[in-house]
Every structure is written in structure tokens, then in C-alpha cells.
């Protein structure tokens, strides 16, 4: 298991966003977390990567308890996180955005940083925009850049919070392809609303509902699960 949580709970002013979530993620898997709006998905991954302090419970990453570590220490150990809302450095060129992500791990080795940056840019087909300001990119390209910043960190656990939100059909296709190629390289934890994407890329799915784990299973099992259908029916996954 690369990631394990036990009893992970978050309460905001007494209201529980997550209650006692036990979660196991084997290394190398591509896992999707789905659930209706307000199911506590973002809070859950927020607690995993350290953006949101847990009220109680533990997070174990790569065999070590990281519950007490601040976000940047967890990232240092090999997590990467992309934001639900596009979050790039708008006033910096695209290349520098990626380089900032690469540099944290590679340090002062300029050649290595440059090579990694170039590799990521060409992998995402945005080399031709390397010198544009990130803030001037279209929404879709900002999302792709955001994923590129995650890639440049060479994470062992790549957490993507609704990466396809607001992408056009064609861009979603490209995203699916990209995730599939990443599959072999790293463990992926994906929060996703778009069921097409989930069914296509996820090997295994965890369903959250009202802050708790409702079901775990392969895409086929989840599709057939009546409890899941009930949770969705009427609470929409549009």
C-alpha cells in the first residue's frame, strides 16, 4: 500500500465533512473517487496531501505516518496535487511554471531542470506556448499546464482534483490518453465527476457519500451496485 488512511475525520464547526474514512491504495493503481456534490471528496484528498488538517485519524504514506507533517513535507516525500480550480502562476511564463515544479526536486541542477521541463512541455503538446504568460492561456490549456506541473514533480502519488472540469470533449479525450500513459509510471488518485472518464481510466473506484465510504470496487462492480445508484439517483452526477 502506498497510501492508507484510518479513521480520517474532518469537522467544520461541528459539521462533519468526512467521518472515519478508511482507505487503502496499492502502489501503481489508478483509483477514482466519486460521489455526489458535498460528499466530502475534496476535503478527503485535502487531508491526504496536507492542505486541510484532519480533525482526527491517520494518513500513512509509503509506510510512514505523515499525519503530523505539513503539506510541503508530504509533497517532498513524493505526493503531487493539482487543484480543483485552475491554479497556475499567472504572471510567469508557461516554461517557468513547469520549471518551478521540477526545480523543487532537482534543485540547482540547471540542465536537469531544463531537460525535465522540456520533456513535460512536449509530452503535453504545449512546447509552442512555453514563453507565453500562463495567465494568458485558455482555460483548457491552463488545466493542462496544471497537470504538467504535477508531472514535472515525478510524483509517486499523483492526486488530481477534478482535472477535466470545464474541458471540452476533445480535451477530455486527450486527458484520458495521458492518464493511461501515466498509469505505468505512478499511482494516481483521481476525483472526477465525469463518469465517462472514470469508467475509462480507473482500475478501481471508491464512492464517497455524506463524508463516508459507501462502496469500493471495480468499475463494473460499481456500475452494478444498487446503493451507489441510489446515492446518485436524485443527487445527480452531471
Amino acid at each position, binding site marked *: 500500500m502506498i497510501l492508507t488512511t484510518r479513521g480520517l475525520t474532518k469537522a467544520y464547526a461541528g459539521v462533519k465533512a468526512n467521518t472515519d474514512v478508511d482507505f487503502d491504495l496499492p502502489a501503481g493503481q489508478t483509483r477514482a473517487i466519486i460521489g455526489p456534490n458535498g460528499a466530502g471528496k475534496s476535503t478527503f484528498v485535502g487531508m491526504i*496531501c496536507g*492542505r486541510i488538517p484532519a480533525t482526527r485519524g491517520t494518513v500513512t504514506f509509503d509506510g510512514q505516518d505523515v499525519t503530523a507533517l*505539513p*503539506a*510541503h513535507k508530504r*509533497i*517532498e516525500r513524493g505526493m503531487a*496535487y493539482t*487543484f480543483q480550480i485552475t*491554479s*497556475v*502562476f*499567472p*504572471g*510567469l511564463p508557461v516554461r*517557468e511554471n513547469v*520549471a*518551478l*515544479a521540477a*526545480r*523543487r*526536486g532537482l*534543485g*540547482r541542477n540547471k540542465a536537469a531542470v531544463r531537460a525535465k521541463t522540456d520533456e513535460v512541455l512536449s509530452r503535453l503538446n504545449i512546447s509552442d506556448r512555453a514563453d507565453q504568460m500562463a495567465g494568458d492561456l485558455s482555460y483548457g490549456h491552463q488545466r493542462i499546464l496544471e497537470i504538467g*506541473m504535477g508531472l514535472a*514533480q515525478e510524483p509517486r502519488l499523483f492526486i488530481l482534483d477534478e482535472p477535466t472540469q470545464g474541458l471540452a470533449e476533445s480535451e477530455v479525450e486527450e486527458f484520458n490518453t495521458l492518464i493511461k500513459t501515466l498509469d505505468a509510471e505512478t499511482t494516481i488518485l483521481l476525483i472526477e465527476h465525469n463518469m465517462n472518464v472514470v469508467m475509462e481510466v480507473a482500475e478501481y473506484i471508491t464512492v464517497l457519500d455524506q463524508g463516508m465510504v459507501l462502496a469500493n470496487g471495480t468499475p463494473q462492480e460499481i456500475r452494478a451496485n444498487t446503493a451507489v445508484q441510489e446515492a446518485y439517483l436524485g443527487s445527480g452526477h452531471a
Partner: protein
Amino acid sequence: MSDTGKTHGLHFGLIGLLALAYFVLPAYHSGNLASVMVIAIYAMGYNLLFGYTGLLSLGHALFFSAGLYGLGLTMHLADWTPLPAFAAGLIAALVVSAVIGFLILRTTGVAFMIVTLMFAQAGYLTILYFGKYTRGDEGFALQQASRQIAGYDLSDPGVRYFCALVLFSVTLLGLAYMIRAPFGRTLVAIRENEERARMLGYNVTAIKLKAVIVSGVVSGASGATYALLFGYAGATFATVQYSIFPLLWVLVGGAGTTVGPFVGALFMFYLIDYASGKTEAYLLVVGVTLVLVTLFLPHGIVGTIRTRFLRWLP
């Protein structure tokens, strides 16, 4: 020419021009220019924090006067020679900025501005409180005899000018290098999107603390240089006004540009100089400029040139 080449050209060109100016300009103006270079060091130190890291401090007079008194008091009371005293000024600024930085970085936004203002005010009052040693608002002069380095008399206009130029150049080139180095890039990243920088694994608080310290030490260096070259230290330099001035210079010149602080300091120096001739209320010029820049020139002079014409400007 590459952007790096142009940047070097700009910086060395400016330094060359300033060296030349001493021989071309009348004594009055070269005297002014020496002052401008010293206060531009202060402005550059401020700019590192405000322009590049995005932290708006209203208390930098504290760091400036830490350097000013660090040098001034050791020379005045303990008869230290200029070089060790200068080091004392830098160390004083280092200690003050490390302690204050540790505290102020717990706050953000408006609270950050007010806390920096409060600490600087407490510093000013402390200088007044120890008036026995500091002579308060009246201040004290450093003897011309003590202001000598290796036989050069620092009160001589020529020596003073080139001493200021050397320190100005070192600061300009040093900060310009730092901005282009990974550390500086990280500062800009924090300014642009702090949460993203944190989630790329950067220890944002530690990096910001480094920025406060570098900014504080450079400001302190300016204070120490001022006391050394002009032979005077007084509590006026610790007042709120002297925290506002670097903000003003950087805003006018262009925050987050390498030469903006110098341009802003030069512009405001001559504007105030001109206004002082007309009225006692020369601070009115400061007020009007602050309001006008906020309203109409949010990028400052150099920043506006950069957005409109020369994208490569550092």
C-alpha cells in the same frame, strides 16, 4: 541580443552612466545623486519583499534604522572603526529582521501591514526612550576624523560618491542575480500564487522569512551607509515616514523591476527637492504622488514601460 544580454547591458549601462555623471554634473547634483544611490539601496531592499515576494511592509524604517544605529552607536559610543561598525550595522539589521520576520509572517494581508507598522513604531519609541544614548530626534553626528577607511576620507564628496556607487552597484547586481536564481523565482512564485507554491512542496514560510531577512539586511546596509557617508544618525529615520518612503519610491519606479527602485527614488528626490523650494509643506507632494500612482500608474514608471513597450525589462 538575448534578454540576459539586454539585462546586463541595462545594469552595467546604468552603473557606467552614474560613474560618468560624477565628472559631468555640477557638484550640487552629484551630491544629490550620492544620496539617491544610498536611498535606492533601501528601495531595492524593500522591493525584494514588496515587489518580488508580494509582502507589503509598513515598517521597513525599523530595518533601516537598525543598520543606521548599529553603525552609528558603535562608532559614536564605542569608537569602533568604520568597517567593524558597518558589520555591526548589518548584524543588527539581520537580528532585528529575523526576529521581526518570525513574528510578522504569522499574519497576512492587512494585518501584516499593520503589524509591521506597529513594530516599527515600537522601535522608533524605543530609540526615543533611550535618548541618553541616541539623542532622540535631535540625533548625533559622527566625527569626520572617525569616518576614514584606509586613508580615504568618506566626507570628501568624490570618495563619498564612489563609495555610494560601489555599494549601489553591488546591491543592484546582487539582487538582480538573486531574482534570476532559483530562490528569486520561488519568491515570485509565492507572490503569484502562494498556495500553489506550497503544494509544489516549497516551504513557503521559511522562504518568506529568508526574503524578509535579505530585505531587512539590505535596508540596514542602506542605513549604515547613510550614517557612514553623511555622518549623522537621528530618530527621524525611524519614523513612519521613512517606512512609507521606500514604498513610495518602489511604487513610483515600478514594483518588481530591478531598476524601478532607483528610478523612483531619483524621481521623488528631485520632486521633493523642487517642492521644498516652493513650500514648507513638501510632504504634500508625497501624498499627491501616492494617490496618483495608486489611481493611475499601478505598475510604476519602469513597470509601465515594461507592460507597454519593453517586455524583456528585468
